């Protein structure tokens, strides 16, 4: 089975514009997480969708699903998220296995709830790639030169730009492989490796690339939010 895992565990500390976590802010007439969820619901290959939400916001998310979602509502499951991104993903994996058992045929397409501009093309390319290669990450080629600085004061390296990509989501995994890779990490590594694909990379497990879109932006800051509102022609709520 193919599952969607929408990561909505953030508490919005970087936005500083409202007490509400950013994924619950309106984009146009609906909260961002609802837009993201609807895109996944309109992909027929994704059979069930799990949303990982901070425990304090589970009821709020339930209300949003009841209020806004009118298609395939019974495919939507809300999971209490953990302290970081990977814990939230693993909570979703636990919920998937509780509901549908363990299987080598289980795949999960994980996605940031604050990337509501994801396209069905990107989702479908993730599905095709994870089915053939077990792990994939969505990226776009870097347009700016990437500069590395070890100390934050001086440049320590400027990598060749043509080899640089910017990571987006979805990130997709064969569920059993993801579990195996995560369990192989020590507690210290788990705390440091906040990107799910990096868990695979550090263990030399191949991660394939899927082409993203510049428009699949992550709405993290106030200016991102203003750009996103302008893109959909909505009003900015400050």
């Amino acid at each position, binding site marked *: 089975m193919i599952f969607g895992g929408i990561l909505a565990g953030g508490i919005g500390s970087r936005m500083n514009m409202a007490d509400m976590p950013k994924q619950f802010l309106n*984009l146009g*007439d609906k909260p961002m997480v609802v837009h993201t969820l609807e895109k996944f619901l309109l992909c027929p290959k994704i059979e069930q969708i799990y949303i990982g939400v901070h425990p304090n916001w589970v009821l709020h998310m339930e209300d949003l699903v009841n209020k806004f979602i*009118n*298609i395939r509502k019974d495919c939507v499951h809300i999971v209490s998220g953990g302290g970081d991104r990977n814990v939230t993903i693993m909570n979703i994996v636990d919920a998937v296995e509780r509901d549908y058992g363990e299987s080598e045929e289980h795949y999960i397409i994980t996605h940031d709830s604050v990337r509501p501009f994801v396209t*069905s093309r990107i989702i479908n390319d993730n599905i095709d790639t994870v089915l053939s290669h077990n792990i994939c990450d969505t990226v776009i080629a870097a347009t700016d030169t990437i500069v590395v600085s070890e100390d934050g004061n001086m440049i320590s390296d400027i990598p060749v730009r043509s080899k640089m990509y910017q990571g987006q989501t979805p990130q997709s995994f064969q569920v059993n492989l993801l579990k195996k890779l995560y369990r192989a990490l020590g507690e210290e590594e788990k705390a440091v490796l906040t990107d799910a694909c990096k868990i695979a990379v550090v263990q030399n497990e191949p991660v394939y690339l899927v082409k993203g879109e510049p428009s699949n932006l992550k709405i993290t800051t106030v200016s991102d939010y203003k750009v996103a509102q302008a*893109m959909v*022609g909505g009003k900015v709520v400050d």
Partner: protein
Amino acid sequence: MINYVYQLVAPGTFSVKYEEAQFESQVIIKPRYMSICHADQRYYTGQRERSILDRKLPMALIHECCGEVLFDPSGKLKSGEEVVLIPNVPGEHSDIILENYAKGAGFLSSGRDGFLREFISLPEDRLVRHEGIPQKLAAITEFVSVAAHSIRRFDCISHGIRNRIGVWGDGSLSFIVANLLKQAYPGSEIIVIGKNPGKLSYFTFADETILRDELPAQFEIDHAFECCGGDGSYYAIEDIINHINPQGTVMLMGVSENRVAVNTRDVLEKGLAVIGSSRSGRADFEQAVSWMKNERFQRRLDMIIFEDEKVSSVEDIHRAFRMDRNTPFKTVFEWGL
């Protein structure tokens, strides 16, 4: 849900409109296959008048499309059903005036966004199931329905002497009109008049094909379908008026950007009926689908369809439009956006 709408903003330039889609009351469809029409090319290449382009753009092109139902709030269509999309937006309801001519009627890809979109929402009555027809062929159902529409009107209007019917034009529309006429009137001789010997050689089902320059003076037909459009309209209409028998019916189907001079003296003298036929309605789509279920007809359609590579980016849309200009008949492509 934020829907991606791929709009033509100026000839040769697409831009994405991010549209907050409200799908509550309509059927949601994922487009699967599309086909390019001359009308799309005229916008894409900027052949329309500047004032028209200024008024109608930005706009998503494409009105020939089939897709998959994702959700129907009315429950009449099931998720996964394959449907053809009707681009007509009906105008004032009338028991006499057909939906595609009614006042207030609209058309998706003429002043409103066409089907170059990530997802499409339409009322349930704008969708026709195409079970039994491969998607690649179903993509051109709208085009077939336009031919079906003209034949339906012809059947209502023309007198009963239908021994010889002439079809002017050697393009895709002419191919389908001539083929459907042969099916609808097996006792009639269907004669196709064109300019390009290579294209005419595809019309093996016709009783006769004639190069326009070689039309004999004594050539006669009872009725005629003009399927040329553009600059060819003038010459085709001129030929038709010259060679048609009295009280014949002339079905005009080709679109011309310029005004066309017509020999009205002979139109009057012969008592001709000159009928404009444009677009189609639901009944014509249903008729087209019924015809297209016939495997022999499917094989015929296959001959005039070029399937381009899947479209998965804006660059691919440009490629499909460029490819279409270099193919003699219809270009279809799988929609992967």
